[in-house]
């Protein structure tokens, strides 16, 4: 399918997502939701906006009003805006807090709003919100959005699968270019160009290829160092398609692996298989940490699993958050990237990550290539 127009997200998907949010607002007695995070704004509005890398300061990028069900959006034009968001609800880009304030005050019933929820906060925004909604108290809207977004609709899983497909093919192109003499930087460029060739130009990760260090875990010498025979190179790929992230990681040895390198790659595969087996509905997320523990593998600084969706989805499973992991349950419809990461001094690291969806009786792989490279 060739996309030549900027279109809003599919109407059924968009409206289902929005109604989930409105229901959650109702249940939590939240009058108005002020969203700064692009993923949250996309979820309720269905509007693709300019992709930007990195975090951005919190600001009113999208506002949802419970009483009317209306969505107000920060954009200066209506391209990609569905007709359920009328022109009156669009407020243009501004560098002036007074204009943002005016846009917020113009929302019906602003002066009477009792509870406003935000997905983040800053000193500037706190002042702005108290002026715009003088009788409101501010509560946690990120928790609400995270809870609503954690279980994916079937259409969302399909979109994630599409993103995974492109991530896999683009990774394969980069792996095909792996040979002694190339650099992590060049391999990353190959991935990016292959992804762009698929008509998709938004990576979720931009540190795609990294040659692992034999002397330090979670370290590499640098992007411009030359790949040599025997190096273990990780390809960590992420692609955003229609707003949804597809992510995976594979480790490849340059040339024929030594016995020790082959053993490390097997260790990674074994660990991933055990992690996959632990992904069952009703299991606590900490089951994944237990797998690392029982395998005697120290978990990496990055989460060992993270949700996939429009961006920063539940769950996030990290050894740094053991209590959170123990109280959080895996549920059918959750989509996550599960990561096996092992390191051995003198050899390097192997990282394997696959996207999965939790099903009624276990989990299903969303990538098409079997795990072991």
């Amino acid at each position, binding site marked *: 399918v060739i*996309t*030549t*127009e*900027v279109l809003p997200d599919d109407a059924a998907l968009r409206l289902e997502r929005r109604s989930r949010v409105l229901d959650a607002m109702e249940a939590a007695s939240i009058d108005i939701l002020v969203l700064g995070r*692009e*993923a949250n704004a996309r979820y309720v509005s269905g509007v693709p906006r*300019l*992709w*930007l*890398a*990195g*975090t*951005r*300061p919190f600001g009113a990028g999208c506002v949802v009003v419970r009483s009317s069900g209306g969505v107000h959006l920060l954009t*200066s*034009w209506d*391209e990609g805006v569905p007709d359920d968001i009328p022109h009156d609800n*669009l407020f*243009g880009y501004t*560098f*002036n807090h007074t204009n943002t304030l005016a846009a917020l005050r113009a929302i019906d019933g602003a002066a009477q709003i009792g509870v406003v929820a935000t997905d*983040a*906060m800053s*000193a*500037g925004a706190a*002042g702005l919100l108290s002026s715009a909604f003088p009788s409101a108290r501010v509560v946690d*809207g*990120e928790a609400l959005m995270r809870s609503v977004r954690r279980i994916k609709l079937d259409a969302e899983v399909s979109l994630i699968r599409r993103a995974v497909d492109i991530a896999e093919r683009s990774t394969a192109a980069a792996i095909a270019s792996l040979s002694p003499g190339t650099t992590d*930087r060049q391999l*990353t*460029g190959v991935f*990016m*160009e292959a992804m*762009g060739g698929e*008509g998709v*130009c*938004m*990576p*979720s*990760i*931009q540190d795609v290829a*990294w040659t692992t260090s034999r002397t330090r875990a*979670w*370290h590499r*010498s*640098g992007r411009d160092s030359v790949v040599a025979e025997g190096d273990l190179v990780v390809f960590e790929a*992420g692609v*955003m398609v229609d707003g949804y*992230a597809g992510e995976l990681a594979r480790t490849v040895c340059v040339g024929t692996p030594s016995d020790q390198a082959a053993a490390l790659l097997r260790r990674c595969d074994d660990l991933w298989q055990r992690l996959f087996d632990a992904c069952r509905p009703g299991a606590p997320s900490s089951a994944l940490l237990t797998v690392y523990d029982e395998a005697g593998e120290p978990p990496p*600084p*990055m*989460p060992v699993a*993270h949700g996939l*969706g*429009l*961006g*920063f989805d539940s769950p996030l499973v990290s050894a*740094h*958050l053991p209590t*959170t992991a123990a109280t959080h349950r895996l549920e059918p419809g959750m989509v996550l990237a599960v990561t096996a990461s092992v390191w051995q001094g003198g050899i390097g690291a192997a990282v394997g990550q696959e996207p999965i969806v939790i099903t009624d009786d276990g989990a299903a792989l969303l990538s098409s290539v079997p795990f072991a490279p």
Partner: protein
Amino acid sequence: MPAGLMANAPTAPFPSNPDRGRMQRDRMARLHELMTHQGLDALVLLGNSNVAYATGFVWPLSDAGRATFERPVAVVLADDAIPHLFSPLRTDDRFDMCLPGDHVHGPVFLEFDEGAEHFVDILAGLLPSGSTIALDEWTHPMWRVGSSLFSNGVPTNAGQVIGQAKLIKSPDEVAFLREGLRITEVAAAEVHRRIAPGVRQSDLSAVFLGAIFDAGAEANVMDPIWQVMPSRVGDGPWTTTGDIACPLLTTERPLDKGDVLWVDVSATYGGFHSDFGRTWIVGREPDARQRAQFTRWQEILRAVLDVTRAGATNADLTAAAREASGGGTPWLPHFYLGHGLGIDSAEMPFVGSDIGQAFDESYQLQAGMTLVLEPIVWEDGACGYRAEEVLLVTDDGWVPLTDYPYDPFSAL
């Protein structure tokens, strides 16, 4: 290739090899001065660019969603010359030169109560109780569990502290910025060679993405813009201003002969964002009317450059642009005539923005500020010309930070 407008301008006084250690020492001196002035004991920084500024740690930026959970966090203490960094990201050898090991820590996951509690404990070990802490932003878990962070009510805005510190670029910073601009221009030239009827917009992005990494960029910053401009405003999307919609998103739309492309791309290098803007024409040379538009654009740019110097106000620049354009407002009304460039794609000074005329009249340019000037010429029915020029403000004028040509147009 014809020379760019900037080709005959004086060369800028900054090193060809920036010194990262010196750059960070300069930044910390600035931050400490501002912190002393505002009575701040610590800055807690969550924003990617603020962390990069304070620590010198640079990494390839992720999508905004992923960037939220893998974000590094920085803590700048008033009595410590070196900031602390908390990060889940893998390190490389270059990073070892930025910060000593005892200031580099594992990740803090501030999106969770457990992570926020842990972080508050860490801060308690770094700071005496009752310390005044400024934050650039915070998560709800930080608000719930971090009473020590909010003991004075709403904390001071650490983002503004960084905003003030980053206004004036040091020679090392300008050198990094200039290299990022050069890398972006190498990639843009690669794309320009591929412009032809039938090529898809997304193909241009593919070439650009591959080329910026090859040329040395850290990361891409935004979905590259290759907007096919309508000849009339009324043929484009509805806008809140009634004016031109730009930038519109890239699709797989194939280019046609004669399409006018407004190009806008950006990449990062050394923690700095670049900016590149030109007008390209698909498959043919510009016609007489388009050349006349470009001539007018150069006249506007020159008029603005003629008044650009330390001590000039933003309003001096906007007045010069308006006068040269014959009285109109020759820039996109939802943006500005110009903006600063540094660790963010658009930062102060904003010239001609909706902050308003009173602000522009009161805001004085200073030596060491950067400016991206992006006037436009528009003839409804005949499309228009837009390009961006990047410069450094000096005591007696400005110096260019790029000399990229205006192909397929010939500079005066």
